[in-house]
């Protein structure tokens, strides 16, 4: 076991982990970060443009925690598997590669998983190449790829709430950000393909945060994005290599069809399997994400010294994650000062 020279171990190097690491290192705390992937930045780090910041996820992540920081060391390809309390009250994190790391506090910033769109078979993901997820598109754009290049007048349909608010998939929660992402993506598609037609299919539009409603208005007025209240529930291939889709326009009570070149699914955020702490799975909140110690202690878990930040607790947008991670860092620092 490593010697106890870190004040905090942060699990996850998405924007929550990076923000907390930056805050704690600024307060002179030594931080070890564990990242299961090859690189830092989490989901957001793979996004081409973040609303409302207008920069790429990679730039955003790098602006939070610049690469070199004397107080922060990062171990990639390290997947935390369990946490245990040591006799002196500090915590030990064991990883799947057999290593263990200990510190007085642990901050869980492990984020969320993306819903596996293949589970909604009626939408044809993994069956028809024209069906993509929001994450697929963000990654392709981030890499500079241009799907559907050469199509004239490409038609896009964007499906909201895929893997959210879906009792059949045992997912009750709303993923909160995907309405904004769907509308943002619609305007981006209209910018990248000026001769395109984009239609968003929604159940409700939940444009809750600053700038979201303005984005929606802008999408209608200046980008001519169409909005249909209804849920696409059947997708089939056409002879000319496109996708035939069926929905109901529930505002008119009429069946609706379209033929599109690409169907983009706004996949929701799913909770990770709970980590085991002292042999027991962690408490979960109503939506299956990591639960907190009390309604007021929103960054502490039931285990002393084990804190939690960001979308590990449930869907959050970037602004919320930044605020939450700073609060978690402040709580962690307070705990360490005791």
């Amino acid at each position: 076991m490593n010697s106890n020279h870190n004040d905090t171990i942060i699990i996850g190097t998405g924007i929550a982990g990076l923000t907390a690491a930056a805050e704690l290192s600024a307060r002179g705390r030594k931080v070890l970060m564990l990242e299961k992937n090859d690189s830092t930045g989490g989901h957001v780090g793979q996004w081409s443009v973040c609303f409302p910041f207008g920069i790429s996820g990679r730039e955003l992540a790098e602006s939070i925690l610049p690469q070199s920081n004397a107080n922060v060391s990062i171990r990639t390809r390290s997947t935390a598997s369990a946490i245990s309390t040591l006799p002196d009250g500090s915590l030990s994190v064991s990883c799947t590669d057999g290593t263990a790391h200990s510190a007085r506090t642990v901050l869980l910033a492990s984020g969320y998983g993306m819903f596996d769109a293949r589970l909604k078979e009626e939408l044809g993901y993994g069956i028809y190449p024209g069906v993509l997820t929001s994450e697929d598109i963000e990654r392709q754009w981030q890499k500079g790829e241009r799907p559907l290049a050469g199509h004239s007048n490409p038609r896009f349909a964007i499906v909201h709430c895929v893997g959210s608010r879906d009792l059949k998939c045992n997912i009750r929660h709303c993923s909160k950000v995907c309405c904004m992402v769907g509308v943002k993506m619609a305007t981006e598609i209209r910018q990248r393909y000026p001769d395109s037609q984009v239609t968003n299919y929604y159940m409700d539009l939940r444009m809750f945060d600053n700038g979201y409603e303005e984005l929606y208005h802008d999408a209608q007025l200046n980008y001519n994005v169409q909005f249909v209240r209804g849920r696409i529930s059947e997708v089939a291939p056409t002879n000319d290599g496109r996708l035939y889709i069926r929905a109901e326009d529930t505002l008119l009570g009429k069946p609706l069809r379209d033929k599109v070149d690409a169907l983009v699914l706004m996949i929701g955020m799913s909770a990770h399997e709970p980590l085991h702490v002292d042999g027991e799975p962690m408490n979960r909140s109503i939506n299956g994400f990591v639960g907190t110690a009390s309604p007021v202690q929103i960054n502490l878990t039931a285990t002393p010294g084990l804190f939690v930040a960001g979308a590990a607790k449930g869907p959050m947008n970037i602004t919320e994650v930044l605020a939450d991670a700073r609060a978690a860092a402040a709580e962690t620092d307070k705990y360490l000062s005791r």
Partner: protein
Amino acid sequence: MKDFGFKPVRPNVIDLATVQNRTWTDILRLHPEMRSCISCGACAAVCPNNNELTKMSVRRTIIELRHGLPLTSEWQNCQMCNRCSLVCPKGLNTRSIFFRLNTFEALNDHNQTNAEPTNRK
């Protein structure tokens, strides 16, 4: 009857891939802000004609125009009272739509096909 190049496809189905909404395009030329209608129905709720005196729904008319559908709403009954525009949260001049609807040549698309819904080939 003039051949407009229409043929009945599937009554009652909205086919976005083939829809022609020339009237809507004409309306947008005058009132581009009509794109921002959110189908809230505030206009329809205060309209004195709304399914009380006559079969008219401002909200429905707007969606049907947008989809290029035959107009099922008796919009000709509009009394130009302006109540719809007063309550629209998007500040849309809906009355002006009805005022001008008659003048759009392309409205023929909608009138002549009122009885049987059609889509362009």
